[in-house]
Every structure is written in C-alpha cells, then in structure tokens.
C-alpha cells in the first residue's frame, strides 16, 4: 500500500539513497553469495569436506546458511517483506519456519534410522 521503503540493509550497516539503488545493491550481494557457493562447490576444500559439525560437513553447513541468507534478502528486499507490517510478516514467515522445522526433523531422523537398518540389518526397536 504505502510506497515508503526501508532503505537500510545489514542491520543499518549499509543505507541506500533510493529504492532502485537498494535493488541493485541487493542484486550484487546475491551474486556474490552465489559466486561463493559455486566456487566452493567446484573446489570443495579438503578441510571443509572432512570437518563435521553435528554430523554434517562444514561445507554443507556453509551452503545451507548461505541459502538462507539469500532467501532472506529475496523475501525482505525483492518481495518487500521489510516494508510490511510485523503482523503480516509473522503470519507468513513464522508459520513456514515452524512447520519446516518439524518436517525436516521428523523425516531426516526417520530416514537415518532406516539407513541404519539397511546397513546393519538389525532392528533395534519397533520398526
């Protein structure tokens, strides 16, 4: 409705003069993030592939976090979520985030369990 745009990104670290300038700024940022992802995906540095945090490779953590960063800036600046009322923002984003957390936790834990069954051929508890 209102066409006022919040022109600050990175928690006020960068402030643009106009909406158009902000769009290009966010575009350059998204390109940089994608470039980092692609380079890491091709190079696959050894220490990032071998190191693990919570059973997931560092490299995959980096990919997923960078993806969420990109998703944030697309939603907040391209889709103007930054300019919407708090209520609308929460109605859309929180609903999504909570459901996804459930879904991923349940499906991935269950899949990992099935993997163990296949691997060890041993049923540990009620399958």
């Amino acid at each position, binding site marked *: 409705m209102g066409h006022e745009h919040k022109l600050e990104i990175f928690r006020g670290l960068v402030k643009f003069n106009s909406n158009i300038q902000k769009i290009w700024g966010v*575009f350059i940022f998204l390109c940089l993030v*994608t470039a980092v992802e*692609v380079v890491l995906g091709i190079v696959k540095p050894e220490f990032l592939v*071998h190191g693990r945090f919570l059973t997931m490779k560092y490299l995959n953590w980096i990919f997923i976090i960078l993806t969420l960063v990109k*998703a944030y800036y697309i939603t907040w600046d391209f*889709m103007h979520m930054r300019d919407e009322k708090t209520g609308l923002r929460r109605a*859309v984003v929180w609903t999504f985030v909570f459901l*996804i957390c459930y879904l991923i936790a349940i499906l991935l834990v269950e899949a990992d369990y099935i993997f163990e069954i296949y691997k060890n051929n041993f049923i540990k508890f009620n399958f």
Partner: protein
Amino acid sequence: MEATVSKTGTEGKTWGGGTQPFNVSYGKMMMWFFILSDALTFSGFIASYGFSRFKFIDAWPIADEVFTHVPFLHGVPAPMYYVAFMTLVLIFSSVTMVLAVDAGHKMQQSKVAWYMFFTIIGGGIFVGSQAWEWATFIKGDYGAVETNGGRILQFLDTEGNRVALADFASPIPTDRVTHERKNGVWHYAEPTTRTTYDIAEVQKGFMANENLLIRTQYLDQDGHPIVLSREASIEKLMNDGKFVVEGANLRHNEYGHPLFADFFFFITGFHGFHVFSGVVINVIIFFNVIIGTYERRKSYEMVEKVGLYWHFVDLVWVFVFTFFYLV
C-alpha cells in the same frame, strides 16, 4: 430493552474491525498466503528428497558428476557452471521484476512495460535451459550396468577416468525376428526403447579390455565411490550384471539411485512448471500494462502481485539449487 451490546470497546484499535490491520489489500495478502502454502508444498518435496537421500546416504549420486554439461561445449567437463548461469538469469529477472514494481509505484508506464519485458525474456531463457538440462540428463553420458539388486555399476579405466560403454562393448551379431501373430498371440510387447548394447556385449568387451574396472555406487568415508579390483569387478559384472542402462528415466538411472532421477524430474519439473506459469501470467500483465489498464486504474498493484509470485519462483530455485547441485 438494551440487551444487545453494540459497542465492543475495541473501536479504533488495530484488530477492532473496520480497518486493515496488515495494511495491505485483500489481493496482496492472499497472494502472500498462496505463496506460503506453495512454499510448504515445495518444502514437502525437498524434505522428502532429503528423506530418500538420508535413507541411501552412502549410495547417492554426486551432483557435480551428474550435471557436467554446458551447451556447445561437448566433452568439456564443467560441473556447476551452467546451473550457476541459470541461477543468475533467474536472480536477474527478479531484479528487473522488482524494478518494474518500483516503476509502477511511480506510475511510469513505459518503464514498467520494458522491465516486465526483460523479466519475461529471463524466464524464457531459464525454462529453455531447464529443458536442455532435462534432455541431457535423460540422454545420459557413459552408460552403466544395473545389477539384479538394482545397483548401478559404472566403468573406469585404471587411471580412474570414466569409460563409456561405446568405447569397449564388443557387438555380438544377432538376428532379431519380428514376432508375428501367426506364431502365437501370447507375447510380451517389446520395450519401446532398447539400449545400444546389451549386457552380453558389455560383458564380452569388459573381459577383452584388461584395464577396465568397475565403480560401485557406494561411497567410502571421504565420499568417493568405491572402485573394485579387476577380479572383484569381473565377478560382480558376470554374476550380478542384469541389463544396460543408458541415461535416466523414472525407473532406471545410470548415475546411481533411480530415486535421484525421480526427485530431480519431479521437483525441477514442478518448479519449471511454476516458472512457465509465471511467464504466462507476466505476459498477461505485460499486455495489460501496454494497453494502459493500470494507468486507468491509477494503480500498478497487479504488477506487484505477479512480482511476488515471480520472486517466489526465484526463491524456490535458490533452495533447489542448494539441495540438488551443491549439498
């Protein structure tokens, strides 16, 4: 009788009624909720991809061995580059879309039209690239052998390079006779596609070439596929090899687990369908802009709504890109 309370005491408050608590029009709010539900659908797909992948975590294809092609560059292995290009095209078309929305706020008709036009072109390039990716994936690369248990065996030379079936399979001349009705009505219909070589030809060629090894689809600790010794390779191919697989379809996949192909077709297909419908909607709005519908309406909010949809398509691609090509 004053039994009915006509005032609730919430007048003038945000949620007291008669106002727009979210400060958006009905259409825009519903576009947001549609996007939310669509996002949940895609999340369901991607999470179930994660389920299948975790289930076969030690036998899942490695994406940058699968998608190594760039148009016009035959035989040059270039993992990721083309899909990175596709990602940039889609992000760039998102930029032109948001510029169109911005121009709409300022009631600049011709600018909106031009930016919408560029957005449509970007969408077209993306869908075309997607089609090319599919075609390349379906056609396949080196070919492989599937075992009785449904595992995939791929071929390497002793230096560790992949070897295509065509490079070593030795043709065995056979006569194929068309089955006619007079010879009996009971017969199985021929499979519609036949592979270039059959399993016997591959086995013969494998025995004749001493430097060939078999790579299984199982990964070792470092995530590299396990390569069998020559003896183990021969034993595996001769005893377990069942038929030749070339390319990928919904049942067989020369790159590894068929579920990988299933999810690839399903998720990128569903996303590609979204891009396609986004392009169609953009074209409709584009013509509305041209004929001045929104000038007369004195509001370009429709551009904003399709813009939301278009950005959403981009948003989904960001996740598809990560979970199919990177992780």
